[in-house]
């Protein structure tokens, strides 16, 4: 009876997740567990059946009553029972420490690889997108740069024309001013010359006439003279 308990305990160790991926889900897990449990129970029943047959046939306990030196008997109930228990305990242990973790790891690995591949595909698309964007940006930048250069060239030319025009205007202004100044100075010089010449003529006439004539008459006469002479001089 203790052997049966051990067998049942061993099956309780059978883990939750079994190797039935294709069917998938908890139903297959339960089904798989049930299959192994059935095999275990049938083996146990057979062992108990053998025991009953041995006892009934009058041979008694085949293990304890077999004398030393005999060849191994076929049907050592305890050896059969223990081996069945041991085998299923090993199966349970392997499920716990080998099949389940390895199965889980294989699934995880498969998921990881799939994820990596998907990620790589996404990255590829993203990189392609970024490349296109960069290309567009580059084209736009080039266009913009060309525009800036063109604008700057135009502005420079305008500035050049403006400066040139202004310079010419200023030069003309200076020239005109100089002309006016020269003219004014010439006029002033002429006036001064006329005055001086009149004074000299008046002084000379006084000396010649020996008397002072009316200032106004003299001046008028001299002025007429100087004007005539001046026209000749200039």
């Amino acid at each position, binding site marked *: 009876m203790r052997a049966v308990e051990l067998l049942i305990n061993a099956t309780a160790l059978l883990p939750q997740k079994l190797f039935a991926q294709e069917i998938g889900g908890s139903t297959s897990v339960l089904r798989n567990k049930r299959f192994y449990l059935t095999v275990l129970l049938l083996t146990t029943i057979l062992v108990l059946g053998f025991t009953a047959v041995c006892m009934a046939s009058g041979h008694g306990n085949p293990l304890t009553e077999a004398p030393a030196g005999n060849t*191994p008997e076929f049907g050592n109930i305890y050896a059969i029972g223990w*081996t069945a228990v041991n*085998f299923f305990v090993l199966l349970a242990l*392997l499920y716990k420490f080998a099949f389940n973790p390895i199965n889980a790891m294989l699934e995880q690995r498969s998921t990881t690889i799939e994820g990596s591949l998907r990620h790589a595909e996404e990255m590829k698309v993203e990189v392609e997108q970024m490349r296109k964007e960069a290309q567009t940006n580059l084209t736009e930048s080039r266009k913009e740069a060309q525009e800036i250069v063109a604008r700057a060239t135009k502005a420079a030319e305008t500035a050049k024309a403006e400066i040139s025009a202004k310079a010419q205007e200023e030069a003309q202004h200076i020239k005109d001013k100089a002309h006016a100044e020269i003219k004014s100075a010439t006029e002033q010089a002429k006036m001064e010359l006329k005055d001086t010449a009149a004074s000299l003529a008046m002084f000379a006439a006084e000396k010649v006439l020996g008397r002072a004539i009316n200032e106004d008459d003299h001046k008028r006469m001299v002025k007429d003279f100087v004007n005539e002479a001046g026209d000749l001089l200039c």
Partner: protein
Amino acid sequence: MIFGMWDAPYFHIGSIPVDHIIVTEWAIIAVIGLIAFFATRNMQVVPTGLQNAFEMVVVWTYDFFTQLMDKEHVAKKWAPLLTTFFLFILLCNYSGLIPGAARVEGFQPPTSNWNVTMTLALITFFSVHVAGFAENGMHYLGHFISPNPLMLPLNLLEEVTHPLSLTVRLFGNIFGEEMVIAYMLFMVPFLIPMALMGLSVLLGAIQAIVFTILSASYIAAATGEGH
């Protein structure tokens, strides 16, 4: 006393006697369990060392049974049982190679005992029929009268022959091999038995593979089409 002969119980648990071979089985289970435990203790996505080796064994057996059986889902369902058969039988066979094993009283490979091989064969026997019923339902019974009802006795005989042949083949090979090595050691203690021991390494592996493949093929036949 030479191994293979009747052995008195080693000790008792309650009223249940424990034989020497049972203790050997426990040791084998402990070894396999410990290897499995250490191999999968710290699982990595990229496997290395023991994890890699153990994964390789499990995945290889898995693929092997999938190729052997027609139906993949059946292979996946029964692969753990068959892998356990293989590992257990292999280590049982090799336990006889431990130095002095043949000379120590009661220390013998468990597979050189009728009862052990018969138990394993019975597990196969029940697995085959459970797998057959699970896969084909009541139609499975049809294969006993296939191709016609007159074949029923032969078919039934075949079903009995399968576990019997599994039992006798494994027991006979390992027991015979161990007996030969034991007598050789008795007669010529040096060098000569080494050749036989080398042969028994090969035999141990072959017998484990044969037992497992036959079990797999019986399950495949029971779950196959046409039942």
